[in-house]
């Protein structure tokens, strides 16, 4: 079972990811904030994490740093708005696997996820 954690403060993003990925055999867990996501990661390390960059309580970059401390093997795909491409680049430098831009089409998401699991 390929487990994926989606950390995003936006309900619709979490639901969208779940709805797109679940039919393709992925087990999607969700967290509505950076803190909540990190708590889930305390229990188990997910192989793939979709992480929103801009969240109210904790910045995506900070969450990424924490993730990299706890789960070394976890792959992180940053989900970002166009305005934060630089931040996404910064995230890649900090060890993120990839990034996708909002709004994204289901295929874009699937492609990115597949790529992450295949490498």
């Amino acid at each position, binding site marked *: 079972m390929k487990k994926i954690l989606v950390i995003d403060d*936006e309900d*619709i*993003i979490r*639901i*969208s990811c779940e*709805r*797109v990925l679940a039919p393709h055999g992925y087990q999607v867990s969700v967290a509505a904030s950076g803190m909540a996501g990190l708590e889930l990661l305390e229990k188990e390390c997910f192989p793939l994490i979709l992480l929103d960059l*801009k969240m109210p309580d904790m910045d995506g970059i900070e969450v990424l740093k924490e993730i990299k401390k706890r789960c070394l093997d976890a792959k992180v795909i940053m989900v970002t*708005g*166009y*305005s934060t491409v*630089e931040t996404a680049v910064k995230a890649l430098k900090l060890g993120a696997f990839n990034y996708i831009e*909002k*709004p*994204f*089409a*289901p*295929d874009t*998401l699937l492609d990115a996820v597949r790529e992450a699991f295949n490498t």
Partner: protein
Amino acid sequence: MGDVLRRYYRTLAAKLIIAVGLLMLVGSFVFWYAILYKQEKDLQSIAVRYSDSFIKFVKERTYSGMLTAQRPLIQQTLEDISIAESIEGVSIFNHEGATFFSSKKEDIGKLVNKETITCKGCHLEIEKPVRLMPYPQKWTIYKNDKGFRTLKVVEPIYNEPSCYTAKCHFHAPEQKILGFIEANLSLALIDKAEFRQGIALTGYVLIFFLAISASLGIVLYKIVSKPVSQLVSGMEKVAKGDFEHSVDIKTGDEIGALADAFTLMAKDIKAAKEQQEQWTHKLEAEVAKKAEEIQKTHAGMLQTEKLASLGRMAAGVAHEINNPLTGIVTFAHLMLRRVPPDSEDAEDLKVIIEQAERCAKIIRGLLTFARATPSEKAEVVINDILSRTIYMVKNQEKFHNIKFNINIDDSPRFIAVGDLSQYQQIFLNMLINAADAMNERGVVTIATRKIIINDKPFVEIEFTDTGCGIPEEDMDKLFEPFFTTKPVGKGTGLGLSVSHGIVKHYGGEVLVKSAVGKGTSFFIRLPLVESVL
């Protein structure tokens, strides 16, 4: 006529002539009167002396007749004497006033007029003949009935031994005065002469006065009136603004000096006025320049402020909208998989996806605009970026029917400070705009050149299209965000605004020249990095 006369009277020359003329007239009159008066006195004393000798002559001629008491002889002698010119009459009368002899026979026996000098020459009162004058008056001058003067002389005939010893024994020896000889001598000749002389002198005075006045008038006209009127007309011309006019009076006197001084003054005034005008122009230009600068700065500030607030808002909104858009896109796709392909529902869902993607595009533009404040600065080669951008667009379908007229100099390499991707975005924007303006058919000219603005080197990148041009009324709004003339869905109205914001951020500027129907030129000027030149 009256006005002309009055004006003439008011002239300096007229005043001087009148004053001098009056003075001369009074002087001449006094002179004339003094001469006539002196002459009159002289003639009078001559006449009196003449009358004295005349009386003596009468006495002498009648002497023998008197002693011999020959009355007809005496009367005849008097008549003879009176034939002479200017003798109006001679008579002899006694102390009581009874006339014994007279050259006028009708007067014989008559009493003399006692109220005249005849008696009153010696007697103070006729009634009391004893009272005598201390200084007897022997002669007087009166006017006769013809209007001429007559000299009347009365001389007493004193008693003497020969008289009272004569045979006739007519007079007693104690009688002191025997009678009087009275002669009336006409002064008509003198009067006539004096009258003629008076006329002549008056004539001389008048001629003299006229001659002096005329010559004075001419002289005054030449040395005063003419130069003064010249000066006045010169002053009027200068007062009207003709500073070139010079009053040319070369008399060498005070008026000449005045004219020279005036001409000099006019020149000074002209110079001062010119300088003042120059200053005014300079000041006006300066003020206009400053006003324009202030306006520009203000407009720029307003624009910057507007852009900044708009950018913040756009970023916020765009970011928030991205999430629901993701939902729309995702769920539309999910649904699309459930409906039969090529069905009406499938087509409708595709429209939803398309429109959502359009929203995403607009938002991307907004975010680009919001990010117009760049983060990274590096030295970039403008030539390379430009070439790469052109290469990129040439392969796109949009540009297939567009001819490129490229005039990019590869040396020197124009090095500017900025963000490579941003510059690329700007150039791309310019090219897309050009293609849109020409309906994707026409010529795009791209050129680079080095220019100097305020002693600083700039690179000017020109994008000229042969498109529709920009109407005058749209020029002001060109760089405003969301201003677009493109059809709905084709442009967001952010390209130029973003480009402008970026160029300005790096100290450059964007200029536009456009002619409706002919085309538009955009000039992007970026400051060059001097050290690399």
